[in-house]
C-alpha cells in the first residue's frame, strides 16, 4: 500500500519538537493540551453552527423551500446571528426548580459530547488521543449525556420536561445495546478496539464492503440505533415538539438552551464520524482492488476530506430520516429495539463470529 501523502503526524511531530526545544517536558504537555483544547473548542463551535445551518438548508430543500438566505451569502451567517441572539437572551430562572441541577445539566450534556470528540481520528495522524479501547470509550462517554438530560427534566419542575426526560432515559438505555452490538460486529472483524487499528484494517477495503452482508446489516442497525440514541427524529420522543412542546429543554432559555441545541447537533456529528470511521474506513481513501491508477488518484485527495465527506454523508442520511418520517410512540420505540434490532444484531454477531472463525472475510 502506498503511504498516505497527507500525514498529519509529521506536522504534529514538528510542533512537538519545536515546543520541546523551548521548555521542559511538563510544560510541553501542558501547552499541547491547551492548544488541542482550544482547537477542539473552536471546531466544536464552528461545526455545531455549520450543522445547524446544514440541517436548515437540507430540510428546506426537501420541503420545497429556500431556507436561510438573508444573513450573509446563502444565509451562511444566519446561525452565527442566532448564536449572538441566544448569547444575549435572558437566562430565565424557574421558580421552585433545583437551581444547581438545573444549571448543571446543560454542562453535563455538552461535556459528554466534547469528551467523545477527543478520540475521533480526523485524518491520518490527527487524533487527540488514540486509546486502545477507543470504541469502548466513545460508547461510554456518549451515553453519559443521558444523565444531563434526566437532570434537566427533573430539575426543571415542569411536567412536560419530566415526561421527556423519562422517555429519553428509557430510549437511550435500550438503544445503547444495539449501537454497542453493531459496533462490536466490526470489532470482531478487525480484532481491535483501537480506532486507528480499525482504520488500518480497512486499508484494502472498507468493512461495509469487506464484511459481506452481516457488516451491512450492522451498518443499518447502527444508523437506526444511533439516530435513536441522539434523540433525533423519528426518535425525538424526548423533545416531541407536538406532544411535549420541547421535552426536557422546555424551560431552558438563552445560552443554556443553546448548549443543549449544540450538543444535539454535535452528538449527531460524533455518531456520524464514528459510523464513518468504523464502517466506511474513516480517513482511508476509496480503493478498488488492483486498479493502481485509480487508487493513486484517490490517494491524492487529502484524508481530512475523506473523513468529512463520509461523515457528512451519514449526517445527510440521518437528516433525511428526520425530515421524512413521523415520530414513533414510546412503546413502539421499545418494540423496535427489543423485538427487531436486538435479536437481529445478536444473530448478526454470531454470524460474524462464525465468518471470522472460518476466515471467509477478506
Amino acid at each position, binding site marked *: 500500500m502506498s503511504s498516505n501523502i497527507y500525514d498529519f503526524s509529521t506536522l504534529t511531530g514538528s510542533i512537538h519538537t519545536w515546543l520541546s526545544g523551548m521548555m521542559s517536558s511538563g510544560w510541553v504537555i501542558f501547552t499541547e493540551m491547551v492548544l488541542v483544547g482550544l482547537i477542539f473548542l473552536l471546531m466544536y463551535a464552528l461545526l455545531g453552527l455549520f450543522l445547524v445551518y446544514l440541517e436548515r438548508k437540507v430540510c428546506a430543500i426537501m420541503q420545497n423551500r429556500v431556507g436561510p438566505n438573508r444573513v450573509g451569502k446563502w444565509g451562511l451567517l444566519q446561525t452565527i446571528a442566532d448564536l449572538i441572539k441566544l448569547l444575549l437572551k435572558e437566562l430565565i430562572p424557574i421558580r421552585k426548580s433545583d437551581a444547581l441541577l438545573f444549571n448543571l445539566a446543560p454542562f453535563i450534556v455538552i461535556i459528554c459530547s466534547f469528551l467523545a470528540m477527543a478520540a475521533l481520528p480526523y485524518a491520518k495522524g490527527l487524533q487527540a488521543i488514540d486509546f486502545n479501547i477507543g470504541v469502548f470509550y466513545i460508547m461510554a462517554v456518549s451515553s453519559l449525556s443521558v444523565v444531563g438530560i434526566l437532570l434537566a427534566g427533573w430539575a426543571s419542575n415542569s411536567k412536560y420536561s419530566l415526561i421527556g426526560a423519562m422517555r429519553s432515559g428509557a430510549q437511550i438505555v435500550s438503544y445503547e445495546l444495539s449501537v454497542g452490538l453493531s459496533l462490536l460486529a466490526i470489532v470482531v472483524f478487525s480484532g481491535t478496539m483501537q480506532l486507528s487499528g480499525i482504520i488500518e484494517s480497512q486499508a484494502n477495503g472498507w468493512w461495509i464492503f469487506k464484511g459481506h452482508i452481516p457488516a451491512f446489516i450492522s451498518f443499518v442497525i447502527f444508523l437506526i440505533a444511533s439516530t435513536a440514541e441522539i434523540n433525533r427524529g423519528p426518535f425525538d420522543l424526548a423533545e416531541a415538539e407536538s*406532544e411535549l412542546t420541547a421535552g426536557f429543554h422546555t424551560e431552558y432559555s438563552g445560552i443554556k438552551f443553546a448548549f443543549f441545541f449544540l450538543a444535539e447537533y454535535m452528538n449527531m456529528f460524533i455518531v456520524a464520524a464514528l459510523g464513518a470511521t468504523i464502517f466506511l474506513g474513516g480517513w482511508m481513501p476509496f480503493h478498488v482492488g488492483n486498479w493502481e491508477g485509480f487508487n493513486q488518484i484517490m490517494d491524492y485527495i487529502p484524508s481530512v476530506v475523506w473523513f468529512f465527506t463520509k461523515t457528512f454523508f451519514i449526517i445527510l442520511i440521518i437528516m433525511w430520516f428526520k425530515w421524512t418520517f413521523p415520530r414513533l*410512540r*414510546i412503546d413502539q420505540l421499545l418494540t423496535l429495539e427489543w423485538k427487531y434490532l436486538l435479536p437481529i444484531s445478536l444473530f448478526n454477531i454470531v454470524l460474524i463470529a462464525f465468518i471470522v472463525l472460518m476466515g471467509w472475510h477478506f
Partner: protein
Amino acid sequence: MMSEEIIKDVIVGEQEDYLINLGPQHPSTHGVLRLEVCLKGETVKYLNPHIGYIHRGIEKMCEALTYQQIIHLTDRMDYLSAHINNEAVSMIVEDALQVEVPERVKYIRTILDELNRIASHQLWWCAFGMDLGALTTFFYGLRDREHILDIFEESFGSRLLHSFVCPGGLMHDVHPNFQKRTKEFIKYFRTKLPEYDQLLTGNIIFQNRSKGIGYMSRETAIGYGVTGPSGRGSGFSCDVRKIAPYGAYDKVRFNEILETEGDVFARYKVRMAEMHESLSIIEQLIDNIPEGDFTAKMKPIIKLPAGEYFRRVETARGELAVYVVSDGNKTPYRMKFRTPNFSNLFVMNEIASGYKIADLIAISGSLDLVIPDIDR
C-alpha cells in the same frame, strides 16, 4: 396568594393524579384549546376540555346585524370552510323568502364548496402529519393548497375569509379564468395525491401510530353527534350532501365515504378518499356551468317572514346547522349555529382515555378541530 388559589381550583382529581395542561398555547392544539389531561405514566386517564378562550359571541352579534352582514361573521367560525358557512346562511334566507336561485349560482357554489373542502383537508393533512412528527408533510400540503387559494384570490379577492356568497347568489361573477385554473388544479393535484400516500399513508410508522388508536364506535359517534369525516370513519352515515342535497349535489354522482374501523386511521382514510371524491365532483360540474345571472333578484333590505328556519350543510368538518328565529325584522331574533367542531371536541374524553399521550395528539389531530368554530 392568587396563584395558589388558581392552582387549588385546577387540581380537582385525586392526590396522585398527574395533571398536565395541554394548551391553551400548545403546538398541537391548533388554537387556544386547553385540555386538562390526567396521566398515569404515559397513559391518559381522563381529560377535560376547557374552551371559551376566543368566544366572541357571534350568536349575540348576529342579533344586531342584517342577514347580509351576518355572512361575514360566519367566515370567522370555521375559517377553513368559510365558503360553506356563508352558503348555509345564504340558503336559509333563500329558503325563508322562497327565492329560486339561478342554476349557475348553484353550480358555482357547489364547485367552491368542494374546492374549499379540498383546501381544508389539505391543511388537515399537513397539520396531522406534523402532529405525528412528520414535519415535511406540512410544506407539501401547504404548497398544494396554495393553488386553491390562488384560484380563490383571483375570483373573490381574498384567500381565506371570502364573504363571496350573499343571500340570493354571489357577490359578483367568478373570474373568466376560473374554469381553466380549476381544471389545471385538478390535473396538478391528481399527480400530487400519490405522493401523499407514499409519504404518510403507506408509511409503517404512521400506520402503527394510527391503527387501532382512538376507537370510536358508531353508537358513540351518534350519541356525541360526531359528524363529518370523523363520524363517517366510525360508519355513521351523516353526509348532509347525500341526506338532504343542496346546491348542485343532486346533479352529480359521488359516494359517501364510510369506514367502519372507527380508529384514527379510518378517519384519515375517509379524508383522503374525500379529496379524491371532491375532485371528481368538481370535474363533473366544471364543464357544465350554465350561463346566466350570478344572483337572483333580491330586495336591498331583507326581512324574513316571522317564523323559525332550520338548515343543514356539510362543511369540511361535519354538519353545520343554522337555526333562525325571525320576528319579521331585518335582523334575526335569535340565531343559533350548531357547529360541527363543538360536538366533535367533546367526544375526546371518551375516545382518548386509556391511550398514550402521543396517541392523544393523534386523536385530536384526527378529529380535525378548528377552535374558533367551537367557541363561536
